[in-house]
């Protein structure tokens, strides 16, 4: 039957109205989300097995770390800097070393910065390193591991390695063949194969050279191993690897632009990394590992870490974690607080002269009611991070409020040019620089207050610790 054309206007209108009604009906009966979150574990994905165990209350017992170390540090002082940090007075050991360096122009200060993918590619850490080295001197990128999943993302030093390294990570291995190194990994050379490492300095201020490259490796019954070092076009030097001590160091070459280390007959030796520093000023080591919740740090071997600390003398340990325990649907982080308290206590035993600084998770946004909003788990997590910082006499920086608090991640992403990536979790170069500046700013305010107290005589000089330093 022929219809008048205007009927089709009305019919179209009615179709849309009915469609809205049908939609409303479907909404009542169909699921609200087309793609529910899948948390299927697939092999090949970086997963922090300790964190998973802890979250699922697995019967596997996880080391709680050491019991609380008695608070023997003297001169604890109250230093108030801003609303974004607490317990900064707990960093006096670090501040004192910095003060020595600043006033005498001699000595070294070393920071170990432990983190997760937020520090991938040396993000944030490189900016903090740069700020300290510009202010107090020091050259070099510090300690770099043997292999790294995010090596290609790092610009502060170009890091390449052959594919045949056998690396175990404390993220997914509880009982490694040999103790984990300070970056949470231990790497082995397979028998009878060409295995190499290559580092190249880039055009980065204070890191234009690989300063005093020194190899760190562990003990072994293998006494036939050697390493060939080529650090210029046509010069190769061969070194025997002496494997008698728990921790061995070998200076590979003078400062150089590029360095390639090729290992021979070096199977069964645990390799830990190469350190690059000029021996004075401030050095900051980036020990970030993607996916790390912080809990695996409890797996450090105390004796090995003590041996390492005798060589590197850490003054400040920074822990920037949290992102990897968000997103599991929980807002109760008391379990994380207790586990991380154990981790911090363990670290205090591993690095007895170091102050410890806890940096909270930053803001992270997820989709809620069809809009990107701050994950409801962020604030509870920050609260518990503050609690374990307090309980372990650590300094605490609240990165969440420092960023701007609730809703700040969305703003950082929307900023023009943007400061964070569209995963609403990670900062980009620009954002990381800003975060690095903010963290340094908090530490610097604390140091400023410390100096005021120190110079007015309200804090006396700390007696130098008597630990013997092993020579590199």
């Amino acid at each position: 039957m022929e219809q008048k054309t205007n009927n089709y206007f009305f019919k179209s209108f009615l179709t849309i109205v009915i469609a809205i009604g049908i939609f409303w009906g479907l909404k009542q009966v169909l699921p609200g989300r087309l793609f529910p979150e899948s948390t299927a574990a697939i092999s090949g994905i970086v997963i922090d097995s300790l964190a998973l165990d802890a979250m699922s209350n697995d019967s596997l017992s996880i080391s709680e770390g050491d019991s609380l170390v008695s608070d023997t540090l003297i001169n604890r002082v109250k230093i108030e800097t801003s609303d974004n940090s607490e317990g900064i007075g707990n960093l006096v050991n670090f501040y004192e070393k910095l003060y020595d360096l600043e006033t005498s122009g001699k000595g070294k200060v070393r920071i170990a910065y432990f983190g997760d993918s937020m520090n991938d590619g040396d993000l944030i850490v490189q900016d903090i390193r740069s700020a300290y080295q510009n202010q107090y001197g020091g050259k070099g990128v510090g300690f770099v591991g043997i292999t790294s999943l995010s090596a290609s993302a790092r610009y502060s030093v170009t890091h390449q390695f052959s594919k045949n390294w056998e690396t175990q990570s404390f993220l997914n291995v509880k009982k490694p063949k040999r103790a984990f190194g300070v970056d949470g990994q231990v790497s082995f050379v397979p028998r009878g194969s060409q295995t190499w490492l290559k580092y190249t300095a880039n055009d980065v201020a204070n890191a234009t050279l690989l300063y005093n490259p020194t190899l760190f490796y562990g003990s072994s019954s293998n006494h036939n191993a050697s390493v060939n070092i080529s650090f210029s076009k046509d010069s190769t030097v061969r070194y025997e690897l002496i494997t008698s001590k728990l921790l061995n160091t070998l200076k590979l070459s003078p400062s150089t632009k590029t360095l390639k280390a090729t290992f021979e007959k070096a199977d069964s030796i645990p390799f830990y990394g190469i350190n690059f520093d000029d021996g004075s000023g401030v050095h900051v080591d980036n020990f970030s590992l993607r996916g790390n919740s912080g809990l695996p740090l409890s797996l450090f071997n105390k004796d090995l870490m003590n041996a390492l600390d005798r060589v590197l003398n850490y003054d400040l340990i920074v822990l920037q974690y949290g992102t990897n325990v968000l997103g599991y649907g929980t807002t109760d982080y008391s379990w994380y607080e207790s586990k991380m308290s154990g981790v911090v206590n363990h670290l205090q035993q591993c690095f007895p002269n170091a102050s410890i600084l806890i940096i909270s998770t930053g803001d992270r946004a997820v989709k809620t009611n069809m809009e990107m909003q701050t994950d409801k788990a962020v604030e509870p997590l920050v609260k518990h991070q503050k609690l374990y910082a307090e309980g372990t006499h650590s300094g605490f920086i609240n990165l969440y409020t420092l960023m701007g608090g609730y809703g700040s991640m969305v703003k950082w992403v929307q900023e023009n040019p943007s400061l964070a990536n569209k995963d609403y979790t990670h900062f980009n170069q620009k954002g990381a620089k800003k975060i690095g500046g903010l963290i340094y700013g908090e530490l610097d305010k604390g140091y400023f207050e410390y100096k005021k107290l120190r110079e007015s005589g309200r804090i006396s000089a700390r007696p130098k610790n008597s630990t013997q330093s092993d020579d590199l």
Partner: protein
Amino acid sequence: MLTYLESYFSLSSDQIRSWFEYDPSNPLLFSTSLFLGFFLIFYLVYILTKKYAHFRTVYVFLFSIFFYYKAGGVYFILLILSALINYILSEVMDLSPKKSIRKSILTITVVLNLLVLAYYKYTNFFIDNLNDLFHGNFQLQHIILPVGISFFTFQAISYSIDLYRRELKPAKNVLDFAFYLSFFPQLVAGPIVRAKEFLPQMYQEISLSKKEAGLALFLIITGLIKKSVISDYISLNFVDRIFDSPLSYTPFETLMAAYGYTLQIYCDFSGYSDMAIGIALLMGFKLPENFRTPYKSLSVTEFWRRWHITLSRWLRDYLYIPLGGNRKGKFRTYINLFLTMLIGGLWHGAAWKYIAWGALHGGALAVERLFRQFVKLPEKNILVNLFCGLLTFHFVAFCWIFFRAADFGVARTVIENITRLEYNPEAWLTVIQAYRNVFILIFAGFILHFTPKRLSDMVEMCFLKLPYIGRAIIVGGVFWLVYATASSSTQPFIYFQF
């Protein structure tokens, strides 16, 4: 979606105000429930008053201006000014008997339009390059790009040139011209409509046949699926994060992001165009087709006949042909092709990466033309077609990397990362499993795209044959699909151990 309707009985004055006020962080889009609500009310009045042409013109124009305000803020004033000035200049030109005067006025019109476009779109680009060249320190200006300015400027220019060429009867009055320039369905993202195709429709009684009514709804739902289901989901949950930081990802993920973006940009752009064409059709206006499954192309030349067709036609008629087209010898033809695409690239955005993207396409068009002079490929050979199709697709996908990357550095990183790809199916499978939802959509998107035309026409026919209630069920189902995709939580971050 549709929370507005659900919360009908508990509206606060703030909420109602937010519907009518411009929110820069939430510009009005066709794929939002707010637009659906506005459109329904607008459409009902439109239907009831469609006999009154003059009222209709004023009414639609006002709604278009409101739509523009909700999409781009106060710059609706610029749109009104553009309509006014272009109309006056075109009228003066049309009434001038002397060709030289007509030509001068046309030149003034085109230059003026391009100057306004250049000011808003290219000032900072120009200052930036000037600073780089002469180590200058000129301050960048705080200029906001008015939404859709590239589209309505091109429409205004085409009107003047067609009028100059006497290919078109002028609009009867300024309001009619403003109606054409501001017609809301294509205002923000095209298609670029020619006045000579659009104005005559204004002067006819508007009508909607049974087939057109079905087609309009079909275009709207396919547009919604393309834009709000496929494009929005894969960009937020996969493509964006990889282009943000390519080195944090494996070569395989980066390659998949390049493929993903190839699908995303098509779904986003053509989906929005489809919705625009569908909405206009519901109002009884036929807008030109803008995309015709472009990735099925067997050459870059063919690609530009299928991709953003209204822009290609515009560039051909108002840039390539005036430059001399292919009438000035072979060498000039290549130069003209190349220049047209270079400028076409710059039209997409004020950055060298867009110019590079245009140059790549321009170069490919010239090379293809040269190639065809010496080599005649067999036309119906499946293997040859498959090879040409794959080559074209990959060339286009490669060029999109420049289009999407923040800058040349990022584009280079993406490309370098892809070159590090190694054959490792096990690892690839892990990535696909981990991003299962994303890959389902990418796969489905490409399958739909490469579906033979006969099959997709058949689906369209089936939809057209459905009774109204059947159509309503499908449209309602698509609404739910959009809603359920939009409310899906974001894909958690995944790192791989290879």
